Each structure stands twice: as structure tokens, then as C-alpha cells.
């Protein structure tokens, strides 16, 4: 058999660089879900003076394309400033890998999204968000779509676990259609906080359950 992937992809797949997680990272993000087949988590530590990414690690639940792109993108981002790293495109990453089969685009885009989301998470935590767009329902919904419903592997918006969302003067209230005694209640609450707490113009996040 000859492999459907370039030698460079195979090399990164066999020996992925920068694998693992950083404890208490300056920025982190998870993109994808088991339902869509692939998932990638990116962790970064950034020098607060120079804004250079000094350490970066990734984890992947995915196919060879996902693992290889995660590996190559961490290699490309390390040592760059966050502004430079944000600009790394999917095209540049796949070129670096010598190309990917077109059906695998989705799996590789996730890694690029993961890096950008981790940088955004860092910026939000530091309060240095450059594009200060006021938070609206779309933004909150978009973020909640990254929280998975462990029962189905699909996100909590799609599976109608999110009953209601309110945004009021820097405060977000998310109402979930499960009781607080539910086996995943605390997990979901924690994940929702993780996705929303850092938004630049939000001061408080409340997660409510069914009575």
C-alpha cells in the first residue's frame, strides 16, 4: 500500500511535535467535537512583554490529518508573536505539510482554528482584545456551540439543552434544560464558564438549571 498522505504528513503523524497540555496556560481552546469526528485542544504560554508565544502544546482526538496539522501549526507558531501567529492560515499550514487530501480539509482547519481561539482566549484573559465588538446573542451562541452534550457527543445548542440565554449589562445568564442533579450538570457548568467568563465586556456569568 502507498499512503494517501505526503511524507511530511506521515512524519508529523508518527512523531507529533509539542504534544500534551500546559498546566495553567495563558491561553487555551478546544475546537471540534467527537461528533464531527475530530477534536483538537491548543495551549499557549505567552511572554507578556514581547507577546511572543514561548510555549505551545496541543492534544488531538482525530485522524492523521488532524494530528499532523496540530503538530505543524504548533511548530510554526512557537517563537512568533501572537499577532504573527494569528495570521498563520490553513493554506500555509497545509503547504508546510506538502498538501492534504481534499476530503481532509475539515480535520486540518480545526487545528488552525484551535490556535486562533487559544490566542483569543489569552487576549481576553489579559484584557487586550483588539477588536472590541460588543457581545451579542450570536457570539454567546457561537461559544456555547463548543460545549458538548456528553450524552450525544453533539453540542448543547443543537441538542436543545440550552433553554434560554440572556445578556444584560455585562451579565450573561444561561438556562439549561436539565436539573442540577443531572450527572453532567457540574461538568457543563464548568465548561460554559470556561467559554464565557473571559469575554472582554462580560463581568458575570450565571448558569441556571431546571427546578
Amino acid at each position, binding site marked *: 500500500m502507498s499512503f494517501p498522505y505526503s511524507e511530511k504528513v506521515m512524519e508529523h503523524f508518527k512523531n507529533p511535535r509539542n*504534544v500534551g497540555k500546559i498546566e495553567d496556560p495563558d491561553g487555551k481552546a478546544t475546537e471540534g467535537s467527537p461528533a464531527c469526528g475530530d477534536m483538537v485542544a491548543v495551549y499557549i504560554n505567552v511572554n507578556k512583554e514581547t507577546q511572543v508565544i514561548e510555549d505551545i502544546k496541543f492534544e*488531538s482526538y482525530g485522524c492523521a490529518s488532524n494530528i499532523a496539522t496540530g503538530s505543524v501549526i504548533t511548530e510554526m507558531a512557537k517563537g512568533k508573536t501572537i499577532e504573527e501567529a494569528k495570521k498563520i492560515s490553513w493554506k500555509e499550514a497545509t503547504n508546510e505539510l506538502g498538501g492534504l487530501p481534499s476530503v481532509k480539509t475539515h480535520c486540518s482547519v480545526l487545528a488552525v482554528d484551535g490556535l486562533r481561539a487559544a490566542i483569543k482566549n489569552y487576549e481576553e484573559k489579559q484584557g487586550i482584545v483588539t477588536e472590541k465588538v460588543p457581545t451579542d446573542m450570536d457570539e454567546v451562541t457561537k461559544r456555547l456551540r463548543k460545549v458538548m452534550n456528553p450524552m450525544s*457527543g453533539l453540542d448543547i445548542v443543537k441538542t436543545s439543552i440550552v433553554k434560554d440565554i440572556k445578556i444584560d449589562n455585562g451579565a450573561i445568564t444561561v438556562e439549561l434544560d436539565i436539573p442540577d442533579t443531572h450527572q453532567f450538570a457540574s461538568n457543563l457548568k464548568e465548561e460554559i464558564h470556561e467559554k464565557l467568563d473571559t469575554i472582554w465586556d462580560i463581568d458575570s456569568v450565571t448558569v441556571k438549571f431546571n427546578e
Partner: protein
Amino acid sequence: MDKITNSIYMDNSASTRMDERVLEAMRPYFFDKYAVATSDFGYSMGIDAKQALAESRSAIARSINAGDNEIIFTSGFTESNNLAIKGVLKALKKQGKNHVISSTIEDFSVRNTLQKLAKEDVDVTFIPVNSEGFVDSEKLADAINDKTALVTVQTANQEIGTLQDIEKIGEICSQSNVYFHTDATHAYKRIDIDVSELNIDLMTMDSMMIHGPRGIGALYMRKGVELAKIMDGGYQEFDKRAGPENIPGAVGFAKAVELIDEKENQKIKEMTDYLRGKLLSEIKDTTLNGSADRRIPHNVNVTFHYVEGESITLHLDMRGIAVSTGSACFSKSLEASHVIMGIGGDHERAHGSVRFTLSRFNTKKEIDAVVEAMKDIIENLRRISPLKKKE
């Protein structure tokens, strides 16, 4: 680019290595007796060919305790399934019967045939299966109505190896006077099937899953079953399947059937059980897919949680090991296995599922090598998986 020759092949529900003895049996029908089967009044070479075809048909018939004139040779399981389903529906259309009942976990040759017919004028009911893959026979019985022409439920599942209770399903169909077709592609010759004792009206068999040549299969059709031709041409195969007979194929198929015995299946079962035991006990966070005890002897299907199947199979391939997975990333369609989803599994369970199917050519030594490789690969992939930390 590295070229890999798979030295350990454990994907025997996709295709099998042909046995040399099968090739030897076929050889004369390529080089010496290559005529088509003529009538008894034809020329000698054609009469010889006709004789070989008749003997092969007889061997297939004997293997399931059927009559010689109840076996139709086809090009394989895909054609047999198409012929059974479309042929019966076409024949019973004038009686106003246009309803088919099937299960949610059938092979694509049944599933896609039915889904296409459903877009035309056929009603299709897909009966769900339970967590082990068994069809709910009560729901099946309830689904039968005046318009039901056919029930088609596989004998064994292609991915998880679950053996359906075809005796019970046959009984239900017989009581309701509905034809019962079973796709036995993955069970034929691996378990005993006696059509004289089971209420089976039509049954699909294939040669390439049992070390025979590819491009040849058969459809058992009980005497008296109404079935219309679906492909037009000559009058071959009792005027049910047009086209010159594949005589070397039929001879090879018959030889392959003759070569499998109970002892071989027992030996394969012991190896499969050994592999299953090792995978489930030596690797953490694994789930057996399918039934614990009612399964074909050569299949073990396990989900390795927190990891994705294409990554597993690619790593195995680099070590010369061939298996398959229900992961979306592995398939051309990028869809997760409908079988694993059908037994109530989620996407994660499908993505991490790996099917090992054994044959007479596998050895215990190979199994030990596969187990060692799996332990190493799963450990490495879990080390980089973000799912694992949720514990």
C-alpha cells in the same frame, strides 16, 4: 513514499486471500475447458463446462441442504441481494405488495437498495436493533401487513458479527406468509445453515469471503418462490439471471466451500476468542461491539475509547497490519458506521471501533503481534488525546 506489504491481514470480512487449491481447481476452466455451458446437444468442451457448472451448483446446494435447482449463481453478494429484493418486489407487484421490512444495520447492498426503492413506489420499514445488534422480533412481527412482500434481515452482521435469530424471524415470516430473505455473506460456511429446517426463502452467499475467487456468489431461492429477472439477456440460471455463466468462478467457489470444515471454524474461533480476551483485558477503556456469545467465529469488534480509528489503522498499516474501522475518517463518505450508531453507540464509539476478522491463514503468533502493536498504539494516541482528561 514508503510501500507497505501487509504481512498480517485481519480484514477477512472485506476480502480473503484465495486458497491455492481453489486456483488449481479453476485452472482447467480457463485454459482447457473454456467453453460456455452448452446444451447436451452441443460440442464436447461445452458439455464438459456444463457438467462442471452442474457439479458446482450441486456442491453449493449440498452445503445448505437445498436442491440443485434452488441455487442461482450471481456475480457476488451485491448482485444476490439486489436480485432477491428487486426480483421479489417486481414479481409481487401485480398482487399489490410493495412493502419491505429490514433492519437498521444491513450491509450497503441491502440498505442502499432499499433506500433507493423507498424513493420510488416501495414502502420500507427499518426495524431497530438492540445494543447487541439483535433485531426486535416483536416490532418486526408488528410491522408486517397485507402489503408486505418481503422481510430481509442478515444472518450475521458485517461489522460487529452479531448472529440474528433467523430461525425465529423465519418462523414469523412463515406464519404471516411473507417471503424471508437473509444476507448470509458473513455467516455462510462459518456457521451451519440448513435451509430445509429454517424458514428461509432466499439466501445470499458469496465466494470471496471464504477464500474463493471474487466475482462469484449465489442466491438460494426456495422452489416456488416468485422472482422476476432484474437484468435482461439470455436464459441462463433457470431464466433468473442472464449472462454467460462464470464457470471457473463457480468451480472455484465450490472448491472453497469444500475446503472449509467445522474443525477450521473451531480453530478460528479459538484464535478470535484469544484475541478478544487479550484486547479487552490488556487495554483499558475498551468496549466489545456486538453480542458477547451469539457471533460469527471469526469476528471481534472493539471500541478503544478516546482515540480515533483512522489513526489506529494507519499506525497498524505502518507495522504491516491490515484491519478496518467504523470511523468516519476512514470511510470514503466520511460518515460514521451506521452499524455502531444502530446499536445505540455514539459517534465516539463508532470513531474508535476496530474490526478484526480472521481466517485460516492467521496464526496465534500474528495475534500476539497485533495485541502488542495495539497496546503501544492506543497508549500513544491516548497520550495525545484531549478526551481522556475528562475522567
